[in-house]
């Protein structure tokens, strides 16, 4: 058909102002039927605001929204869904205590009619049949009657997509859908997205992993400071051009690794086992080294760190710090021994969101600045201010509530908090997840600085380019075991994937045997 297609969803000159900040300024935006559009921009560029306006969670100040040429004014998320715009948030909107079918048809369960109508009885069997059909469309291998709490993250996401299909969505907005997925699960998600595109659905895709946009998207729309700064054809652009548009300046490379001098072994782990979770994990970490941990989600990387840090008890294995065997029974003990843990879940486990920057930073150091239980407030404050400056945390004041900082700055507060303790070993679990490019490269250079000071760093990351660029050596885990330990020079994306997915294993004599299908 040679006809110029009408956009299914069109946004015209939309602006939104929050107290003190113009979040969106005259933004135009359009999606065509059967198209995947990537919406990119740094944190604070206005992506989320725009998406929330489309989803009905926020109201625009000025501007117009058109769906299939008709003006719409969604007042609530429910209304927006009814119109055919479904949103899949980073935090899934599923209830763990209910079945897959009940979740897919939440608030629109099929019910019996006729004389039974006043009783609002749910047609459970029909609901499960319909759910099965939608799950088949998505290609999810889960039973409609299964409880959501028993599903993996990737499966939950598939249920979430099926839920969007159940409201007969024409436009599906996905907010960082890959941030919680491992690489092969991401591939599967992309297959689903391509499948949906073939069915004529339109998808708006938000991500911080730039390499992904080339895989599935047709067009790329870039926002900066609340304005649309460019539209790119995914087939005819590259990462550099996108970054240039996003940050408005040239960034030489996303991953600027600086090599530190690598010294003695500082942490040695041997035969670490926690039944049913991790099995016989051994590795060494040296001064000044960044040791990357790669693997699929659920491979046992986070669990390993929890055991080392004393948050979970071990069933077997030994840990040495600076050649001395230690028995770490609690996180408190781990901190005393010079270990620090920057957890994966920044907002729940890394920070107390309702407290100020200052108080958050003081939490692990309370002992250090206390004399007989009495806080040396001035000393603590001076030290905290020092670190805020060194890490260039952008906060209006030390009293600012952490909740109001951007993701990148929150992560820096977590880092600063641990650096105040002068740790020997710093474990970082997904240190740059959900952080924009600019803040990401700042975190990376901070990591290199720390390594130069002789700190041993363990970095868990599900982002392959990050692991490959930043690590001196890479531990690849598969199903709770160490599948391989590779030098940076030997590591290729293919090799890491092969080990991570169990396609290759260590031979009996410790030599690498590749290509062996398990």
């Amino acid at each position: 058909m040679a006809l110029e297609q009408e956009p299914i969803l069109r946004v015209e000159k939309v602006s939104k102002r929050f107290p003190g900040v113009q979040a969106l300024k005259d933004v135009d935006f359009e999606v065509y039927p059967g198209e995947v559009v990537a919406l990119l921009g740094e944190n604070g560029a206005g992506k989320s605001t725009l998406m929330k306006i489309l989803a009905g969670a926020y109201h625009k100040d000025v501007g117009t929204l058109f769906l299939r040429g008709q003006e719409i004014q969604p007042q609530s998320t429910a209304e927006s869904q009814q119109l055919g715009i479904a949103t899949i948030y980073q935090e899934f909107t599923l209830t763990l205590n209910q079945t897959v079918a009940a979740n897919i048809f939440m608030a629109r369960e099929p019910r019996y009619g006729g004389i039974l109508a006043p009783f609002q009885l749910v047609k459970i069997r029909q609901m499960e049949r319909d759910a099965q059909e939608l799950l088949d469309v998505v290609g999810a291998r889960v039973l409609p009657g299964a409880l959501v709490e028993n599903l993996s993250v990737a499966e939950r996401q598939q249920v979430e997509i099926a839920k969007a299909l159940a409201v007969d969505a024409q436009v599906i907005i996905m907010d960082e859908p890959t941030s919680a997925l491992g690489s092969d699960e991401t591939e599967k998600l992309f297959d689903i997205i391509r499948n949906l595109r073939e069915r004529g659905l339109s998808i708006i895709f938000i991500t911080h992993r730039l390499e992904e946009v080339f895989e599935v998207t047709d067009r790329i729309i870039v926002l900066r400071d609340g304005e649309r700064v460019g539209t790119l054809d995914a087939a005819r652009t590259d990462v550099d051009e996108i970054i240039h548009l996003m940050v408005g300046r040239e960034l030489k490379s996303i991953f600027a690794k600086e090599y530190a001098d690598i010294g003695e072994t500082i942490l040695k782990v041997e035969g670490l086992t926690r039944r049913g979770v991790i099995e016989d994990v051994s590795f060494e970490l040296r001064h000044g080294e960044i040791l990357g941990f790669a693997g699929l989600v659920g491979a046992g990387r986070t669990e390993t760190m929890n055991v080392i840090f004393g948050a979970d008890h071990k069933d077997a294995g030994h840990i040495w710090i600076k050649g001395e065997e230690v028995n770490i029974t609690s996180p408190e003990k781990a901190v005393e021994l010079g270990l620090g843990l920057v957890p994966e879940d920044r907002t729940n486990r890394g920070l107390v969101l309702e407290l100020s920057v200052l108080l958050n930073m003081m939490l692990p150091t309370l002992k250090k600045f206390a004399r007989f239980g009495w806080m040396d407030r001035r000393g603590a404050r001076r030290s905290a201010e020092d670190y805020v400056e060194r890490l260039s945390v952008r906060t209006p004041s030390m009293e600012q509530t952490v909740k109001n900082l951007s993701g990148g700055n929150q992560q820096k507060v977590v880092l600063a908090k641990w650096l105040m303790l002068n740790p020997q070993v710093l474990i970082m679990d997904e240190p740059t997840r959900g952080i924009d490019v600019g803040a990401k490269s700042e975190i990376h250079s901070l990591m290199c600085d720390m390594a130069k000071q002789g700190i041993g760093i363990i970095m868990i990351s599900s982002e392959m380019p990050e692991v490959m660029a930043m690590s001196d050596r890479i531990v690849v885990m598969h199903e709770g075991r160490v599948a391989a330990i590779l030098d940076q020079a030997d590591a290729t994306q293919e090799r890491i994937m092969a080990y991570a997915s169990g396609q290759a294993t260590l031979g009996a004599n410790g030599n690498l045997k590749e290509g062996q299908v398990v």
Partner: protein
Amino acid sequence: MTEKAVPEQLSRRESFEAASRKWGRSIISGQEIGVFIVLMVMVLYLSFKTDTFTTSQNIRNITLSFSWIAIAAFGQTLVIITAGIDLSTGSVMGLSGLAAAYFISGDKSPWAEEVIRNGREALGVDGQYVPVALLAGCAMGMFLGALNGVLIAWANLPPFIATLGMMSVARGFCYGWTEGWPFRQLNDEFREIGQGDLAVLGYDIPYPTVLMLVLVVIMTIFLTRTIWGYRIYALGGNEQAAELSGINIRQVKLLAYSLAGLLAGFGGTLMTARLGVAAPTAANGYELDVIAAVFIGGASVKGGKGTMVGTLIGAAIMQVLRNGLNLLGYDPYWQPAAIGFTIILAIMFDQARQSPQVAAFLHRLLGRAEASMRSAG
């Protein structure tokens, strides 16, 4: 009969079996089996240890005296599944009982009575105030419950605070309205609901027990089969998710608290009929028994979990415990301590069940039991 052949879809038979298994599981989930076994062990122990436990009079007394606790606890279950709590249950039961008694008490001559009497004479059903009393009790309960719901859903008060206030307000009205004196001389037909029996297959079953059993069926259907039940579970599972999916959160909360009030009111009315007098101090402290029954029955403090059958068993366990301590000759003053221990143990058991290791162990245990049952059958 031609059936569309759809590959990878469950056959009708399989899906029916899966559905019925799930239906069974939704009624009797892990914890219910646990508490049911506990109840059975207690019953068996007491029937061997004492001569009096298994007499039909004693069984009748037990089922009668936990019936109104259980009925109020059905409502409390709804609230606790939404991750809320209703502390006002005891006071609501008391005030509802007074409201019911007000219309039929011989020593009161309210203006309403005249109106009703005239109306009833016109209908030719003179002298029977039972439906009026029942209606008044339930309406009072529902009204107070709805107030709780409004305070929680619209004024955004935490459930603990809103119902703590209501607990005191309702109790205050009990004292103020009666000036401290009970409503007496309740009419015989009304007392019959609480004291009479229904003859079923040669057994005399007290009316409150019958009503409790009818309600457990109705409430189970309500909770597991209607859209309202789905919404209540969704709200307790993930409030934000429920809201983003288009569920009217406030409406669901209002419903849960109103029904909790209604059922507490009904329970209070039955209790009043049983006692034959409506005292302002009636049902004082019952909220603890009611809440305990729900938690012993397997509901989660975090919301999202709980069933009516579990609650019924929970209420039964507490009454059997009380009765058993009596029959074994312990001083009744020790009863609260025993009840308290039971509650703490039940919650500890629930938390242990949630740890993955214990869950895996239970799974193996149940799986083995299921396998041996299958091979035996």
